[in-house]
């Protein structure tokens, strides 16, 4: 296991310390909890946004804590949802009297832990609402299952709901726009290599030198299909066909694009992917309003990428355009 760490048992704590030491102008840590909050939390009268999940997806979610996005990011153990008490502390620390929105990725563990925390906060009289992000089209939706996973599309929820809250939206309004994003965002990913959870010390799966995994999640969980490695354009064609068909995204639509690296894939390759994404959208008559290329929702050092499309209307466009100032997401 080749990692720049000291002790697998405390990677999350040491990471958070390193983060707070890097960005004291943006964030602070709640003493005794793995919770990062805005340096100026609680912001009085503003709806507060709390997200989080397992660690290993950096800069998600603590990297998005700041003006125009989240008020708190709760960091669980690597790839493990945080516990309710941690989330509860976050809620208490950021509630500015206007209520708190929990942005939850759709994993059984995350949903249960966040909902328990929400119940605890409601018991204390804090107004709490929640939304569940499920943008991953790799997973077939069926009434018999728990539905889709939440992956990189979550960052668009943070951005847009964050802008709405910053602009003074009520809890109901912020929740409504978050749900609009969730309804209109679709993602799918793939991986070339596994990653190693520090505490486990070995790869989350094994894969041949000429193979790739399609529909990969962000926790090293197997994808929906394993195939021989394909060219970048073929990979994009496949992912885009699933994504486009799902909403569906149709000619005349305007979208925001996110090409997200999973951790081990260099920016050069992400741009090569975006080239094809953009070509396909051109061919389909779908207009690209904004593009984000980089690492937004990672899976430790896994090589691979995901593509996210968000269908925009005027409200979403103006909220997407709003400035944001956080350690990992800045927009002027």
């Amino acid at each position, binding site marked *: 296991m080749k990692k720049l760490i000291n002790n697998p048992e405390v990677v999350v704590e040491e990471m958070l310390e390193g983060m707070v030491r890097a960005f004291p102008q943006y964030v602070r840590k709640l003493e005794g909890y793995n919770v990062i909050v805005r340096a100026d939390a609680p912001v009085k009268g503003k709806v507060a946004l709390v997200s989080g999940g397992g660690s290993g997806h950096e800069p998600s979610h603590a990297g998005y804590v700041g003006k125009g996005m989240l008020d708190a990011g709760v960091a669980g153990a690597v790839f*493990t949802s945080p516990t309710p008490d941690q989330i509860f502390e976050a809620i208490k620390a950021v509630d500015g009297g206007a209520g708190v929105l929990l942005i939850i990725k759709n994993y059984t563990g995350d949903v*249960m832990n966040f909902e328990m925390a929400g119940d605890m906060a409601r018991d204390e009289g804090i107004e709490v609402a929640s939304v569940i992000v499920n943008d991953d089209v790799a997973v077939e939706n069926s009434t018999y*299952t728990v539905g889709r996973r939440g992956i990189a599309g979550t960052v668009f929820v943070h951005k847009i709901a964050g802008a709405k809250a910053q602009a003074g939206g009520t809890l109901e309004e912020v929740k409504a726009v978050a749900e609009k994003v969730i309804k209109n965002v679709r993602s799918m990913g793939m991986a070339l290599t596994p990653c190693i959870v520090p505490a486990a010390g070995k790869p989350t799966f094994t894969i041949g030198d000429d193979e790739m995994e399609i529909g990969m999640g962000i926790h*090293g969980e197997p994808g*929906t299909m394993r195939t021989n490695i394909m060219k970048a354009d073929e990979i994009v064609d496949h992912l885009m066909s699933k994504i486009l068909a799902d909403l569906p995204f149709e000619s005349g639509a305007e979208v925001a694009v996110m090409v997200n690296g999973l951790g081990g894939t260099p920016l050069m390759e992400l741009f090569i992917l975006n080239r094809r994404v953009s070509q396909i959208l051109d061919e389909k008559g779908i207009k690209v309003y904004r593009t984000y290329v980089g690492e937004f929702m990672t899976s430790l050092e896994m090589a691979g990428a995901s593509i996210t499309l968000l269908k925009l209307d005027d409200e979403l466009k103006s909220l997407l355009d709003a400035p944001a100032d956080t350690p990992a997401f800045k927009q002027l």
Partner: protein
Amino acid sequence: MAVDSAKLVEIIKAISEKITENKEYLTQLDSAIGDADHGINMSKGFRAVVEKISGMEGKDCGTILKTVGMTLISTVGGASGPLYGTAFMKAGQAVTGKSHLDFNDLITLMEAALEGIKYRGKAEKGEKTIVDALEPAVEALKRHREEGVEVALREAVEEAKKGMEYTKDIIAKKGRASYLGERSLGHQDPGATSCYIMLETMAAQLLDGKKS
């Protein structure tokens, strides 16, 4: 059968030991259809549990079980933390104030545990989860109530084992493995396995106790 607080603490410690022994195995099962952490999660949780309940031999059984539940909830995270945590919390609530547990209490608390897991996780039997091991066990306990604790426990463990093995033949409908669809077939569910291990350890402790 009569379990006092000291014995209860002993049983929980035994469960903790067994879970830790099986840490690698549970994690390996989870790596096939999940995210390769179930053993890590569970052993972390039970390490904290053992620390918490050491010295609680004086408390009533309900309090001890609730402490186990709260500790699991606040240390494990993931899916198994709230699920097992809620199970122990509900079990504890079902026997609040009792300094001793008899066989009927055992059935009561096991029913409550099952109910807690089903409430929290919204899973039914046949969805490849903890419920597939726990529900048949609780049913066996009830079915064999009249035949006494020994028979009932042996049957319960037997049924839990069958339920656990049956998870290999079904597609996951809940939890992380559900994202795999058909690819979850052929793999044994980690949660059902940890549940079987816990039940088996508890039974062994109780039956040992009986003979002595």
